[in-house]
């Protein structure tokens, strides 16, 4: 009976969030018009508190999805479940314009486990990119003195379902392979109206992505002066995501004038590499530093003008425990505290300006009753873009809530 109840909850849960049917809309940025939309950073609650760094960090009681090699750190008989939600407040400023808004959504679902001492895995669902914008323009109708209005509405986004495997080759060397399935629509609706002549049209362009994507990782651990060092590498080659492109042109009476349903198209995800290093003094602190590069230069996207450039990002963070963990401690003394920051120079170069962003992060990890599960809370405050050259600056404040739930596998709880 109880099982059925839980199943019901689970279905309700997925249904409400629409994670399966339609990816949650995670953005409202005008910048999301470009490429696959706004690409959302990976990382679970712990990473977010640490400035989203962690390529070299092993999974333990908390999963680290930044590097597929990390899962071999999952302890024996542990089953880890991660769920995260975001609430993001954004304020956009441009020359003469200002807008703001809030959106909240389920961010990810994941679970990790170990098959054997040398093989661990994780499956999960998370947003890869998101599109959300509303842009209104006026253009002159060629051959006349009149203007017409074009309203652009972008929506959709790519969801990533992954199944990662981590193989422990040596005690201090792990390899990871992450097989992802990327799916979801990228939609732009353009509504054109010229009321003097009674001309109304609507163009809907939809790319429904569905493609596999692979990326790889490596983690290597070593000890110097009793400190645990680790190096993490990630790599993904340039890959094409196949899409079904559909195009529908309708007139003011919603009659279809032209439609193209089954054109196969693709978008290209660039070659990506990352290098991270971490230093850990167990029970006291963990420091992580990451660098990532994405080779966007030379990639072409349909319906896009301008060139991309290579994207770089740096993240750094630290997690520390000011007090030695003890059951007798007052509650906050058993918490983990995290701070970090990140800086990125994105693949967009608009009006001669590279779109850059930076953010500062802070977070806490609160152990739950069973001591192995944690509730992680993180905030990230940052800036993307710039208001110069008529561009747009986004200032955002993100609140993240994450549960890392640990269950012991194949062990009856009564013995524990």
């Amino acid at each position, binding site marked *: 009976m109880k099982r059925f109840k839980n199943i019901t909850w689970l279905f309700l849960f997925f249904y409400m969030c*629409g994670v399966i049917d339609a990816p949650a809309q995670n953005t409202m940025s005008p910048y999301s018009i470009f490429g696959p939309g706004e690409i959302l950073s990976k990382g679970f609650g712990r990473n977010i508190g640490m400035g989203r760094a962690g390529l070299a960090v092993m999974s333990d009681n908390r999963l680290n999805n930044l590097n597929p090699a990390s899962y071999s750190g999952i302890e024996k008989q542990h089953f880890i479940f991660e769920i995260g939600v975001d609430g993001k407040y954004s304020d956009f400023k441009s020359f003469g314009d200002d807008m703001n808004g809030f959106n*909240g959504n*389920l961010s990810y679902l994941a679970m990790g486990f170990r098959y054997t001492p040398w093989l661990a895995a994780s499956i999960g669902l998370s947003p890869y990119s998101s599109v959300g914008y509303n842009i209104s323009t006026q253009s002159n109708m060629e051959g006349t003195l009149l203007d017409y209005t074009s309203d652009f509405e972008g929506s959709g986004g790519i969801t990533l379902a992954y199944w990662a495997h981590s193989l422990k080759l040596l005690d201090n060397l792990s390899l990871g392979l992450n097989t992802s399935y990327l799916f979801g629509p990228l939609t732009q609706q353009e509504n054109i109206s010229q009321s003097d*002549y009674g001309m109304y049209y609507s163009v809907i362009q939809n790319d429904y992505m569905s493609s596999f994507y692979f990326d790889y990782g490596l983690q290597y651990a070593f000890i110097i002066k009793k400190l645990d060092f680790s190096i993490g590498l990630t790599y993904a080659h340039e890959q094409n995501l196949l899409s079904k492109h559909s195009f529908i042109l309708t007139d003011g009476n919603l009659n279809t004038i032209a439609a193209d349903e089954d054109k196969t198209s693709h978008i290209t995800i660039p070659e990506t590499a990352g290098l991270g290093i971490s230093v850990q003094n167990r029970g006291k602190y963990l420091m992580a530093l990451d660098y990532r590069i994405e080779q966007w230069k030379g990639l072409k996207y349909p319906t896009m003008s301008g060139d991309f450039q290579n994207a770089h990002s740096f993240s750094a963070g630290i997690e520390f425990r000011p007090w030695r963990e003890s059951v007798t401690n007052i509650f906050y003394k058993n918490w983990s505290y995290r701070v970090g920051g990140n800086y990125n120079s994105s693949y967009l170069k608009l009006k001669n300006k590279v779109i850059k962003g930076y953010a500062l992060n802070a977070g806490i990890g609160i152990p739950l009753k069973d001591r192995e599960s944690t509730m992680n809370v993180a905030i990230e405050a940052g800036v993307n873009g710039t208001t110069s050259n008529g561009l747009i600056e986004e200032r955002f404040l993100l609140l993240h809530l994450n549960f890392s739930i640990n269950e012991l596998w194949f062990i009856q709880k009564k013995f524990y």
Partner: protein
Amino acid sequence: MFWHLNLMVKMIIFMLRIKTILYGVLITFFSSCGFETDIENIPMGKDFVSSQAWLSLVDSFSVNMSTVVLDSVRTSGTGIAWVGSYTDDELGNISASSYFEIGLPLSVNVDEEIDRYDSLTLVMQYTSNYYGDTLSDQLLHIYQLAEELVPEDENDSFYNTSSLRMKNTPIGSITFSPRPNRKDSIQIRLSDNLGRDILGKFKNKDDSISTEERFKEYFRGIALVSDVNNTTVLGFHADSTLRMILHTTRQGLENEDIENVFRISNGSYQFNRFTADRSHTGLESVGYSEKLPSSKSGDKTYIQSGLGVLTRVDFPSMQRLLEMDQLYDLFKVELILFPEPGTYNEIAPPSQIVLYHTDKFNRIVSEIVDNYGSVLAAEYHLDSVYHEDTRYVFDITDFIKTEFSNGYFDSEHGLFIGETYTKLGSSLNRVVFSDQKGSAFKPQLKLYFLFYNS
């Protein structure tokens, strides 16, 4: 591999059992599970979008204008008797004459003994329609027809070119100062010989007045003919107000004036003959059913209804639409024609003109209707202040789309422009269209496009 699957199934079942899933449910309620925003459409980001569709007005498709004179236009049964002549600055000397039958009075009031002949008159009422100059005196002649009105074809029709033999001498003439704008009549004294003859036939109960048919053999009908020096063409009602009256005096203690009224007998046979002397005009060289390009008529084209003069419009480059590289939707096609400035002050253009399908033989094929079946008309728009925007605007979208529906545009399929078919033979309305290359009054073909990329 099987152990692998088995493991997964076990794991999922296990997962469903764990109560910690309730944490997730809690989280779900905590989050709003979707996108919430109060953002309106704003221009922010307008430099980022690259439009896949755009609107454009293209007016570079050429319009070829020409004038065509139909070999004939039906002019019978229009209810108006046109008579007179005038010289049109643009189209030369125009003459109109009118023909109709006269029937016996409904009841004859004649006393053989005491009625004495007084006079025979023709009374005609103005319609207020006229062309030309009404300030000077006009001279009209009334003739008796020498042959019967026999229609030229199975349509019971007479045409602007129809003509009938008349007796040599007129039975009456009148010089008068026309007052077409008053609800007035003119009365024309006819030949006394004819009048006495008719009275005599009534008194004698002659066989020729026994039936309409016999009377028609005796009195074939009347032709109203203009003198060559007239300056106006006048329209008279060709209905029951058009009367020939035999005036007699019934002698007694007090003389009594008696009228026997003969009226037009077969209105549908009444017709008008229109002729034009086009020497020294733009249309001097025009032949029937031939295209006369505007370049040969002073960069102008003409409409003159009763004479079958129509403007023909061709779109020689329309085929280019099919060769365009860009995808498009043709929203609307407008054809805008401007009357030549200075030509529409004296003679007002018709309030409405329509389009006809025509072919390479310059025949009227049919009136053009829109997708709802109503005649595609353009209303006359007068810019009486600046004289810059006097125009007719046709929405020829459906025509163009229909022409293209079979995949090509037949450039032999032109358009005639003129008054509606029912009005064509009933007036001398005229328009002079400008086709001055490079002028503001040259014809315009406006194509409203949506261009798009798929």
